[in-house]
């Protein structure tokens, strides 16, 4: 093995304590992300993919979340053994996040400048000219005339712009890993494409690993190097994107791929996933 991977997850299991008993959300998964690599975690809602993303910096509220087994090794150090101060130090700094709903994920009563500057202040106290730094990142994510936008409030921006601000905020501390949790789901289709293009472009310009969490196989090709398919808290298929797309092994993966509408295909009803059949197949 040449170098240790940036992120190495080993046998991670996460439970949720609810009033009706314990729910096993993630049932012992393992995967790695190398520096600069993009991994897509694909699965339907409830498959445990978002929980996995949030667990990387222990953002899940505990309780109800319980980390039952496993290790989350970030550059060789186990996140699950870190104290609160160390955790804060990696959040935003080493691992940054973009969430699904930009309109609620930004604080409505602070200007976008203040929200981005807060991250920079926390992790890069050496930066003197905060305004210039914020403008730099707004520019990087393709916001036109960023100086004018500095003192805008989130509600004054469109959904696509808000998500760009989220991305700028995530990039502003030069993280080694970006977790994009359904970054395009809440946006309309044309904006979705723009945001995905943006991520693709950033991937080449800023050397940074990305974990892209999505339920949509359609957006990962050309962006993700590897794919992990999650089903009911387990990774059922894991491999290079090209191979998985070309030759899916697990019936669930095949079913998911069939759900992608194809250009030029015969007009017919899109496939749905038959859970009973999958259950029977194990």
């Amino acid at each position, binding site marked *: 093995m040449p170098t240790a991977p940036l992120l190495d997850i080993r046998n991670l299991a996460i439970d949720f304590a609810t*009033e009706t008993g314990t729910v096993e959300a993630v049932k012992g998964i393992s995967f790695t992300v190398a520096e600069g690599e993009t991994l897509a975690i694909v699965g339907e809602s409830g498959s445990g993919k978002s929980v996995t993303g949030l667990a990387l*910096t222990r*953002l899940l509220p505990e*309780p109800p979340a319980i980390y039952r087994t496993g290790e989350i090794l970030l550059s060789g150090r186990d996140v699950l053994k870190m104290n*609160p101060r160390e955790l*804060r*130090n*990696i*959040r*935003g*700094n080493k691992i*940054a*996040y973009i*969430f699904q*709903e930009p309109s*609620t*994920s*930004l*604080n*409505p*009563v*602070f200007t976008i400048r203040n929200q981005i500057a*807060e*991250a920079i202040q*926390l*992790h890069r106290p050496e930066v003197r000219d905060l305004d210039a730094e914020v403008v730099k990142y707004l520019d990087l994510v393709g916001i036109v005339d960023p100086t004018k936008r500095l003192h805008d*409030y989130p*509600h004054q921006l469109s959904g696509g712009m808000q998500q760009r601000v*989220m991305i700028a*905020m995530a990039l502003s*501390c030069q993280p080694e890993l970006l977790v994009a949790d359904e970054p395009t789901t809440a946006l309309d289709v044309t904006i979705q494409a723009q945001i995905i293009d943006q991520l693709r472009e950033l991937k080449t310009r800023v050397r940074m690993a990305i974990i892209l969490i999505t339920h949509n196989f359609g957006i990962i090709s050309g962006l993700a190097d590897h794919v992990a398919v999650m089903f009911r808290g387990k990774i059922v298929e894991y491999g290079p994107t090209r191979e998985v797309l070309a030759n899916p092994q697990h019936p669930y993966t095949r079913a998911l791929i069939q759900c992608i509408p194809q250009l030029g295909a015969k007009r017919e009803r899109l496939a749905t996933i038959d859970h009973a059949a999958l259950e029977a197949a194990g």
Partner: protein
Amino acid sequence: MLAYLVRRLLYVVPILFGVMVLTFALFFVMQSPESMARNVLGKRANPQNVQQWLEKRGYDKPLFFNTQPEGQLFDSIFWNQMRRFATLDLGKSDTTEREISQVFREGAGPSLLITLPAFLIGLGLAVMLSLYLVFLRDSPIDTAGVVFCVALMSIPAMVYIIFGQGVVALSLNWFPAFGFHAEGLATLRFILLPVLLMVIIHLGRDVRLYRAVFLEEIAQDYVRTARAKGVSNSRLLRTHVLKNGLISLITLTVSQLPQLILGSLLLENFFGIPGLGNALFHAIQTNDFATVGAFVFLGALLIQAGYIATDLCYGLVDPRIRLGSSAETTAGPAHGTAWGKWAALLAGGALLVWALGSGFQSAWWKGTWTALSTKGGQLLAGVWVQNALVVGGFALVAGLILAGARNERWQRAFSRLRRDRIGVTAGIVIALYLLIGALDMLRLPIGPGTSGTTVLDWLARGIPAEKSYSAPLATHTLSVVNPEPLRGRHLLGTTALGKDTLLEVLKACRTALLIGGLTSAIYLPIGALLGIMAGYFRRWTDDLIQYVYSLVSSIPDILLLVSVLLVLGKSLTNMSITLALTSWVGLCRLLRGETLRQSERPYVAAARALGQSHWKIITRHLLPNVMHLVLINFVLGFSSLVLAEAILSYLGVGAPVGTASWGAMIDSARNELSREPQIWWNIAAATGALFFLVLSLNLFGDALRRAFDPKRG
């Protein structure tokens, strides 16, 4: 901005007009000017004096329209009154003949000296404490903190004041116990204790409320984003959550600000502070209708000022709101757009008052009313009729809950409730109180008269009556000069009339439960029905209902209660009617909002598509879906009704003399605590009994809310 302000001010007009009509209806229609004169003059009332008094105030004129040959059409009590209030002329006091505006000018200063510092200190303290609890959320300290807040809320204000004055000022001699002199820094000596007491009185309620607001903020998505940035928990609270939370708090706080001028009724009276609260207290005690009426008008004016201030603050603080464009303001339904509708509404209202006015004053109505009430009284006096009513009442509540429990959501909530240790304990305590109350309501056909004896009295028949006060377990009455031997030992001592304190406290359960039950029986159906109707029918039904409840809520509660009771007179039924008058608003507003949301759901559209009638949709579909809110409101509302009963009895407009009441027992402690030796057992027993009931009701209500809505504990 300016356009908004103008429109907002115009909206005040119909509300104030409504308030004026309401006050008029109350003072001049519900009671006639003659009876008012007799009340004010008291013993000096003879036909001549009454006539003179009426003429002097112009109350000898016709009520609405002057149709006498040489009179002008609008030279009547109603129009003159309207004209006076419209020009902000508040008139003269009925008893002291002083200009009421003069009273306000003199009283506002001392009142504000107490209320303003107390408000600011209380706000700061409550925000800090609630943020601290949110910081420790879900920990035992948080739970204990909430229970402590509820406990603070469950002690009636006058007990704090009596304790503060009696112990801190009189016994420890730390502060002057009475009096007020505005003389520079020395004033501080006089206001310190009242300010402190006022802070404590409101602290529990505020901390609990603000905690809920901050908890709601902490569940927002932006909090997760901030944590993902590496923001620490304490910084998160200090910046992100605090700013958002404070914006939500504006509604709760800024609207109260103008009302601070009115001062604190109880505090000022106790400490002899010459403020507006004291002035009102005296006006109530002396049947000074003109002053009480002016207070109502001024209170409404101040509440409207508070609403406008709230809107302006939002415009300044919340970047999302730009005044004039947004609907997220306190302005009512029409936003001043449909003037024709308003005119129709007001004309209709005035007509109603006129019709009622003529009706109420007619001999036919009076005769019928007296006949009906005596007949009703006789009919209800029978032992078995009363027993049937009591059993019926309990059965009705039990039946409604059982009917609700068929609902799957209720079943889930009940199974959660069973595991809530605080909730179960509180429920058991409430059941005990209900049992005692029921024992004192059910009657046995024993003893003189047709009304029989209550089961509780029958059980307590062995407890002897004494002649005067005696200490707990004492052998002689409490008299320094001439102690007499007692006929028996009394666990908690005896009252001024020699009644056993414990028995008296237990008998007061009945009063509290009766008031709470009767009031709930009146306001719950009204509030629920109107709320659902407003949310379901929308449009003019909604406008009308919103107008009515804005009207009621634009008069400070205590003022409305006091003035209605002053006019109606003391009785348990009147007290229930009066309390119902103010209680339905909260429920109505809550259900209107919830019904608006529910009506968007497909099941309502589906029911309409199936051709269900409106009435069926309301009762079969909407009501079951909001019924849990009614239940929670019932339990929490019950606790405030019990407290209100005590406070009103204490103010002298509550339970009639001779009815056992915790408020009345606390009231008598004013004299008892200043005696030597102090008689503390009556107030202690009454406060204890009241405290545990209100505390349990509050905790049980909270537990119910948690059970139905586990996410928003």
